[in-house]
């Protein structure tokens, strides 16, 4: 067992636990903006999970999914901010 495999066995539970904590904020967040911030954070963490998974499965093409997730997260955050600001504009 190499050092990278040991690091992955530690880091996968840490990433999953932090995603669960972020899901708690999505569930209880007092305002809609809190939920948008937490969802953006979950998408960014998913990129890290995809990178770790590409080491586990030893397939390098999985990293393309990370690029798509990064673009979709930015697009979603921008669209949410645009419409939330227009909602408060009278």
């Amino acid at each position, binding site marked *: 067992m190499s*050092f990278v495999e040991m690091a992955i066995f530690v880091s996968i539970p*840490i990433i999953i636990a*932090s995603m669960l*904590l972020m899901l708690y904020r999505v569930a209880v967040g007092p*305002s809609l903006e809190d939920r948008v911030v937490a969802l953006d954070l979950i998408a960014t963490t998913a990129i890290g999970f995809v990178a770790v998974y590409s080491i586990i499965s030893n397939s390098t093409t999985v990293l393309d999914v990370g690029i798509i997730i990064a673009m979709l997260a930015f697009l979603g955050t921008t669209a949410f901010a645009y419409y939330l600001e227009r909602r408060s504009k009278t």
Partner: protein
Amino acid sequence: MTEIIDVVSAVLILIGSIFIFISSIGLIKMPDIYMRMSATTKATTLGVGSILFGTALYFEEVGIMTRAIIIIIFLFLTAPIGAHLIGRAAYFDGIPLWDKSIINEIEGSFNPVEHVLYSEKFSSDDKVTLPRDQTEHNSD
């Protein structure tokens, strides 16, 4: 040499996952949406960037290194922009600051109707002249 690269990439992956965990704790424990954004945006960007760099070092291929660097640059460019947009939307939406915050520098210096920020404070009695109004005046 391979052993050294293995150890370095393992340490980078561990540091990245620890940073992600710290930012999730900040998302739970911070009292205010603005503090939550400042806790999460920076720490998560650093953590995911570190994990991606560790992955790129592990595979030792040019294609993987290129993809990882592209994702890192994209994250470093878009995370501040997204945080700025959400913070602006939250402020104009009227999300209150934490009740123990002692300073709010743009209070009273933005127009809540037109969503325009000014560098000076103005009272609601003053007639606000927007650039749009001035151009209309000039055309008349």
